[in-house]
């Protein structure tokens, strides 16, 4: 019997045939051109423990996963042995609407969860791309967020507690199920954004929000980036309370406007929203907006969807995506630097800025013949990273072809906190089982 047959057989004993992804679908979970040996879909904590213990005994590494929409984030792996997906652990475990909290299994997809909450007039105010696919476990492990992070925060601001299977198989709980809790250390913060390196998250408790009465989106168009940035800072420094405040350059969701645009999301009781619409219009007109458009109903849903999916939305699938974290006042300058650095390049670069959060995504696409000139792009990324770090920010390469990843450190330096991060990894995953080598500094 070949090794792969033996592996298959052993895993079937743990999770059954239905718990293994068919061989012809393995490439769906491929990471940096390497297909996994197997994708395991356990149905219980017990099965997860068994898989981890089997992997440890057989010297195989394990990459925890949800739906696999973002497995590529990180350094290129040396090997991809087992991918352990929670996607069959997808139940709502506890939901008492009056508490405005919910506890779910990690594999539940965001859209599925929302559909259950909406029935009670509530929702989870996180809007990362691909709600129909991404899992709560994945959202937690990547600390995901979307445009409405301006008002409602990221996963970090929503997660109250979780259950985690450690690489030893031990099940532990962090935090709790209530909205305030300072008993013991706040270990939630360790697992949030840990990209599967510290344990398999199996349950998450979350803080919810009542559904707003109405939602509107205003799209403002400008002749240049500077004016758009000014309006954004005018709004974020005002007493308006937008849910989102996103700048788009070189590619606006849905409209594909060539001019820079600001998308401003508003929600709340009708009176509050109407008043804000007027206020935004006034600010826009006083500050040189050349277009003001109000979206509602179906069209707004589409616009919001496209805005969330950015940079994947629109014509081009980006091959390289970078994210910079900056102070708000550095966003405009950084985007201009990026535009300048890519001016004569033969590809397209689009940018979006979460103006109230200081986050900028840069998406590179339409490479001639589909070839990414790794060295050239790596140089540009290095220049931009320097521009970000010079103003106290940082830059992460979220997705890139493998050849490019080999030329850059996708995470960038974490400075003197690295030693502590390394001890956290070695103490919490002492056998070195989980998503090895792919996080900061090769953790």
């Amino acid at each position, binding site marked *: 019997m070949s090794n792969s047959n033996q592996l298959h057989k052993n895993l079937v004993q743990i999770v059954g045939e239905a718990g293994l992804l068919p061989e012809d679908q393995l490439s769906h979970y491929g990471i940096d051109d390497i297909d996994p040996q197997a994708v395991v879909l356990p149905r219980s904590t017990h099965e997860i423990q068994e898989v981890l213990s089997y992997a440890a005994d057989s010297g195989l590494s394990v990459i925890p996963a949800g739906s696999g929409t973002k497995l590529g984030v990180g350094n290129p792996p040396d090997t991809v042995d087992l991918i352990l997906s929670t996607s069959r652990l997808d139940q709502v475990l506890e939901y008492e*609407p*009056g*508490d*405005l909290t919910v506890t779910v299994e990690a594999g539940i997809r965001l859209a599925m969860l929302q559909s259950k909450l909406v029935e009670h*007039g*509530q929702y989870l105010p996180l809007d990362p791309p691909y709600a129909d696919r991404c899992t709560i476990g994945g959202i937690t492990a990547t*600390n995901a967020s979307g445009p409405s992070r301006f008002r409602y925060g990221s996963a970090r*601001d929503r997660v109250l507690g979780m259950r985690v299977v450690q690489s030893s198989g031990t099940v*532990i*709980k*962090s935090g*709790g*199920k*209530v909205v*305030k*809790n*300072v*008993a*013991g*250390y*706040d*270990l*939630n*913060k*360790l697992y949030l*954004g*840990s990209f599967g390196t510290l344990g398999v998250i199996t349950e998450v408790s979350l803080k919810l929000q*009542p*559904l707003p009465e109405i939602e509107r989106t205003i799209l403002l168009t400008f002749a240049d980036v500077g004016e758009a940035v000014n309006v954004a800072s005018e709004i974020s*420094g*005002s*007493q*308006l*309370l937008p849910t989102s405040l996103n700048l788009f350059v070189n590619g606006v969701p849905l409209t594909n406007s060539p001019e820079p645009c600001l998308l401003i999301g508003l929600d*709340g*009781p*009708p*009176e*509050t929203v109407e*008043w804000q619409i007027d206020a935004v219009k006034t600010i826009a007109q006083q500050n040189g907006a050349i277009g003001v458009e109000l979206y509602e109903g179906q069209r707004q849903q589409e616009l919001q969807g496209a805005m969330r999916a950015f940079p994947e939305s629109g014509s081009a699938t980006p091959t390289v995506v970078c994210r910079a*974290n*900056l*102070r708000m*006042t550095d966003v405009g300058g950084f985007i201009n630097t990026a535009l300048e650095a890519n001016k004569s390049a033969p590809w397209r670069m689009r940018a979006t800025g979460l103006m109230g*959060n*200081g986050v900028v995504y840069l998406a590179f696409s339409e490479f001639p013949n589909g070839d990414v000139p790794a060295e050239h792009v790596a140089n540009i990324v290095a220049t931009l990273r320097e521009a970000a770090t010079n103003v*106290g920010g*940082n830059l*992460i390469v979220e997705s890139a072809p493998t050849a490019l990843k080999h030329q850059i450190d996708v*995470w960038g330096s*974490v400075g*003197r*906190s*690295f030693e*502590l*991060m390394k001890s956290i990894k070695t103490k*919490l995953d002492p056998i070195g089982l989980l998503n090895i080598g792919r*996080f*900061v500094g090769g*953790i």
Partner: protein
Amino acid sequence: MKENDPLIAELANIVGSEHVITDPTSLSVYECDGATVFKALPDVVVFPTTPQEISAIVKLANKHNVPFIARGAGTGLSGGMLPINGGIIIALNRMNRILEIDIANQQAVVEPGVVNLWLTQAVQDDGYYYAPDPSSQQACSIGGNIAENSGGPHTLKYGVTSNHVLGLEVVLTDGEIVEFGGAVEETPGYDIRGVMIGSEGTFGIVTKAVVRLLRKPEGYQTLLGVFETIDDASNVVSSIIAQGIIPAALEMMDHFVIRAVEEAFHWGFPLDAGAVLIVELDGIKAGMQGQAEQITEIFNENNCRETRYAKDEEDRQQIWKSRKSAFGSFGRLAPNYITQDGVVPRTQLPKVLRRIAEISEKYNIPIANVFHAGDGNIHPIVLFDERDEDQCERVEAVNMEILRACAEAGGTITGEHGIGVEKMDYMPLIFSPEDLAVMATVKDIFNPSGLCNPGKIFPTAESYAKLGL
């Protein structure tokens, strides 16, 4: 430790002898925090002004194998800064400068000894404020807030300290000075800033923090409702949330507290009321009146005897003063009190409050309640006289039963005050030995010698015995 101990001279070399306290009378000021039933004398208190001085102190403590403990304003309510085995108290009172205010980026950089309220005062003319507002905000330090991950009345809408801190500079337990996070929302790697917040001073000494500033809301609506019973008031709390309104704050006081506050400050509360609720809306004025009317209606549906609206800012401040001064009035109720801090799911509030009333009756120990109702964060004030041994024993039983009730309702044993020494024994009510083992592992990473604020948070063998586990 003797006064002529070489360590004292070395400390004086670092901070100057006028910033070192060793005489017993002066030391006694530092023997406890706001949980005054717990007392322990430090050997020495030092008042450094720079991270470098703190680093030197920490290295010295390591060399001499002496415990060291950070202290902010000493308003903690769980004995967090208690030097249980003596040692060096590193008092941060002199590190009290606001280093930078960056309105355009809505953030400020502060030293740890800055008093919470000072920061809001420093930025209010620009139309900004610092959101976490513990009721002790006139005294407590931002360093202490970070160590406890403090909350306050407005936590309901705006979150706790952890949601408002972007970056920290910390003197680690080996004396190294490291920054975590920074002036931007996210940095790559594990969120060490996040783990540091709420670590109750056991992972090092915070020497600087970058915190968020929020734009002051355009308007407020503050309502005060007087209710016949605590049950009615708790029903109002869940109805407001169920109707999709998240007020900025939603606070409750029971009849004990109303009476104490009234007798002390004469706000004009009816002495025979069962409960008072303070509800505050904030944000954009347009549409706020509608929500206020909705709340008034919920009040009326639950036998509200009287509703007051803050007419203006001064009125609003008066209402908040009555709430925030509540603690100052408990001295009238009993010589001593312990403030409990459990959290329960909001729908469990009526049941748990009834249970607490039963516990009070069973042990014949009066319990007053003033708390962050919107969050389900209760503060039963257990009133007693520490000179009465029998009462003290009963109080111990009362504490345990209250916390057990919170745990059994699906809640937790502390929402904002921390475990400290006060609630160590009760940790097994909510965490398994495995959960606690992970916490111990993380503690070992940050504090391998155990010299930084020892004897806190973790239960001992006796704790398990006490709980019958």
